[in-house]
């Protein structure tokens, strides 16, 4: 969807006002601020963590942390980059703690046809390689492949120049390919 400059300007003003009100303790404004963003945040967390329950916890923690510290956010225009960073850091924390206490699933084993279709096997293989990447690589791949964000928007979300975003996306793709090769 294309957004005109004027529409972008209005969106910025609206967000700025919401951020100011939310930063002053207005929970309704905070809800209005989160509503258009929450689904994408949650899907980002799910993609990175691969676990719905963890993703739910990470998203809620990140949003609550944003609420707590919103009064100290100095640049409203950077709200999305800031919120994304809070979320991704929370995801990283969860992955670290998960590595320390690995879950062992004893039940729920699916005894139906153990041979997945070739497509499903390829997809599973790519996801397994994806799960071996760094959180930073996963994040930029999620922005590009899951959310279909253009490079300019990825750069804005990560708070980096477009050229750097392009370079990091390329690096993440290469890392994914290497992880796939390692699996093979």
């Amino acid at each position: 969807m294309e957004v005109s400059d004027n529409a972008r300007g209005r969106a910025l003003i609206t967000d700025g006002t919401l951020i100011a009100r939310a930063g002053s303790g207005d929970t309704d404004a905070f809800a209005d601020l989160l509503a258009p963003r929450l689904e994408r945040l949650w899907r980002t967390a799910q993609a990175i963590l691969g676990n719905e329950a963890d993703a739910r916890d990470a998203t809620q923690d990140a949003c609550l942390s944003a609420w707590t510290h919103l009064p100290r956010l100095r640049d409203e225009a950077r709200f999305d980059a800031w919120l994304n960073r809070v979320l991704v850091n929370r995801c990283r924390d969860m992955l670290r703690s998960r590595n320390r206490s690995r879950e062992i699933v004893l039940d729920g084993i699916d005894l139906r046809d153990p041979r997945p279709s070739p497509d499903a096997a390829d997809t599973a293989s790519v996801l397994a390689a994806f799960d071996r990447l760094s959180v930073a690589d996963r994040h930029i791949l999620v922005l590009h492949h899951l959310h279909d964000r253009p490079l300019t928007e990825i750069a804005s979300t990560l708070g980096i120049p477009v050229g750097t975003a392009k370079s990091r996306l390329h690096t993440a793709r290469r890392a994914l390919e290497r992880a796939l090769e390692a699996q093979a």
Partner: protein
Amino acid sequence: MTIHRTHDVGELLKRGLSERTAGDGDEMLASIVRAAATTPQRGARPWALPISRRLLVIGAVALLLAALAGTLAVGRFLLPEPAPNPRLPAYHHNGVIVVTRDGIPREVVDIGADATAARFDLPPLPPISRISWSPDGMQFAYARPDSIWIADVASGTSRRLTDCASQFPPCVPAWSSDGREIAVSRGGHIEFMNPDGTSVARLSVSVSTIYALAWSPDGSQLAAATDGFTAFDSSTLYVVQRDGSDFRALADAAAPGTAIVGLAWAPDGSRIAYINTTTWNAQSGYTLSLVGIDPAGSHREVIADAGACFCLGFNVGGLAWAPDGKVLALGKPGEGLFLIAADGSTAHKVADEWEFPAWRPVP
């Protein structure tokens, strides 16, 4: 496994991630807002107004103060009479420090007196950062998100030095000690410019964006720290000769997700000080430490634990070394301006809510 082509991998990744994720956040939103209603927020928000209204208020206050002081003359410092300050006996220095507040360089702190903030009488400027003084103390270069400007103290006017691609962090200016060049970072490059805006030379440093830049006191070398914030990789401190030779990495931030910021080269050339963001935590934000390293990279020491800061990565703060080399000024957004002894033995908070300090050479 026959997945080789990038296109295939991308398509499969898209499909896999789409299957992995499901999104209906309505219930979660209600849950978050309920939790927020019972969770206190940290820190007051005096800047809660939109930026346009903030500038109006700042402008009105500035005019009122100027009228009260009996002058509307642009370009004068209104420093208070120095008074002895028993809290800062070790920090006496005949200089002033210009700092920004909400991105506007409108205050002067007389460190030699009682650290009382006095008004720096320039018109309110758009949000700026990264102040670098000319050696005669009569001009300073500063960064805006899309350009570098030079402010003239005597006239109170600013002129554009050069444009930058709109980016965060912005281009960083660093005025050479002989006053003849201004180094400007552009992404991973350093461009050397004359103060009149003409470009002299260009030097490639890194594929990552340069976050902080500092000249050696003798003007022969530059230190540059690359950005390590947003991609959650670590940043690196490089040192390079002005002519591009002897390029070397001096130090890496401790771990991914950390960064080197607030670079300052000691006046005697013996040490480079920087702020290292050592960890990031959703509850407490960044943990900052003040680190010193010699230009050869052989001796690195933590000068002081600079505390925590829940600040946006690009605004972790600024660092400036006093001309006498005894004190470092550290600005932490939302926290204050701190003076830290160069040996780390003492630290004092001298003002509220300052960032990007820059010690003004005494004309």
